[in-house]
């Protein structure tokens, strides 16, 4: 046995670090294969013997020699690619042997505390993004782009607020899509001749399940079929929620005021 090298860092602490790094990646939108490989590389570099890990979209199972094992369940993913990149960088430095266990743990805590952009920046980004998409999808006058921007900003504020209240994703997507549709219909009633379709599509882009779709595809490519299936199902569910939200607002408006699209 080569306890001399491994004695420096107790397996439990190494496992805790590796698990923390893996969950940070998974929670912030890393794909399954990346999480798995990063954890393996880190465990190997830090001398954790007999390390095995199984990663799913919503959980990590890992074990190592000496009855060291950890399981994590992570049902909620909030995409923050800045953190994914930072953990990636960290694992590269650990693999190069440039960091001790303590340094790596400290760095990981910093990464986990990395703030997203401010709420104001996010709102502006959602508004400008929705407006630009409205243009790409056929808006040729400023009016639908502006309407899409307002609806996009409203969607972002609403989803972030519902997220804070721990309302589930399906409901918050339905509500946000309904609000967006209501805003567009309301503006359409005020501005006759508004290109409502391009405005709605632009606004809905903020909610489209692009992340789940692409991540699902990437999981499939990496032969993580179970994780890929989970993501694709969530993509379909989100798409369905959007459709339902739009439909709800539209039907309500038609029943109440006879607004036509």
């Amino acid at each position: 046995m080569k306890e001399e090298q491994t004695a420096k860092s107790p397996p439990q602490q190494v496992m805790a670090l590796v698990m923390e790094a893996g969950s940070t990646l998974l929670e912030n939108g890393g794909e399954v294969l990346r999480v798995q490989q990063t954890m393996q590389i880190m465990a190997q570099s830090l001398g954790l013997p007999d390390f095995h890990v199984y990663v799913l979209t919503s959980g990590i199972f890992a074990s190592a020699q000496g009855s060291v094992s950890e399981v994590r369940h992570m049902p909620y993913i909030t995409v923050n690619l800045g953190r994914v990149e930072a953990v990636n960088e960290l694992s590269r430095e650990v693999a190069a042997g440039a960091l001790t266990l303590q340094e790596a743990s400290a760095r990981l805590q910093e990464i986990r505390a990395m703030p997203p952009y401010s709420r104001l920046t996010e709102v502006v980004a959602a508004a400008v993004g929705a407006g630009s998409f409205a243009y790409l999808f056929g808006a040729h006058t400023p009016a639908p782009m502006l309407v899409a921007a307002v609806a996009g900003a409203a969607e972002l504020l609403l989803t972030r607020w519902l997220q804070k209240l721990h309302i589930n994703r399906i409901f918050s997507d339905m509500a946000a899509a309904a609000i967006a549709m209501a805003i567009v219909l309301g503006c359409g009633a005020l501005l006759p001749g508004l290109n409502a379709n391009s405005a709605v599509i632009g606004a809905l882009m903020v909610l489209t399940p692009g992340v789940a779709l692409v991540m699902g595809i990437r999981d499939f490519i990496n032969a993580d079929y179970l994780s890929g299936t989970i993501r694709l199902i969530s993509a379909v569910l989100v798409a369905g929620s959007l459709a339902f939200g739009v439909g709800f607002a539209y039907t309500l408006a038609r029943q109440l005021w006879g607004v036509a699209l």
Partner: protein
Amino acid sequence: MTNPLGLLAQFGAAALATVCFSVLFGVQRRHFWACGLTGAVGWLAYLAATGVGASPAMATFLAALPLTLLARVFAIHNKAPVTLFLLCGIFPLVPGAGIYYTAYYFLLDDRLQCLNRGVETLKIAVGLAVGIALVSSLPMAKKRG
């Protein structure tokens, strides 16, 4: 859409939209230009493909090829995970319009159009998937872990 000014506007709007989405995904500022360029190139490729008569699904597939390639090049150049550029850059090609029109015709009870749009959306998603899968599987000089 063939005049250069219009193309430039499309390019700019696609880049702007992609950068806005990278803000929402917490991408670091230094990658914004790469994300924007990835998205804009994908969108122009899509426009070019539809311009020569490709179906939306086919055009999405064709556009996903240069887009994914560019994402991989930027990943190596900027030393960052491919996900960063791919996730943001793909957004102009995500069939948001398809989802909306499927729901729209569903509401109008136009079943033929609803089914039409639904199948179309599915085809676009498949085209996107195959495009990404093809280029992701290409071996590259420097393999990233």
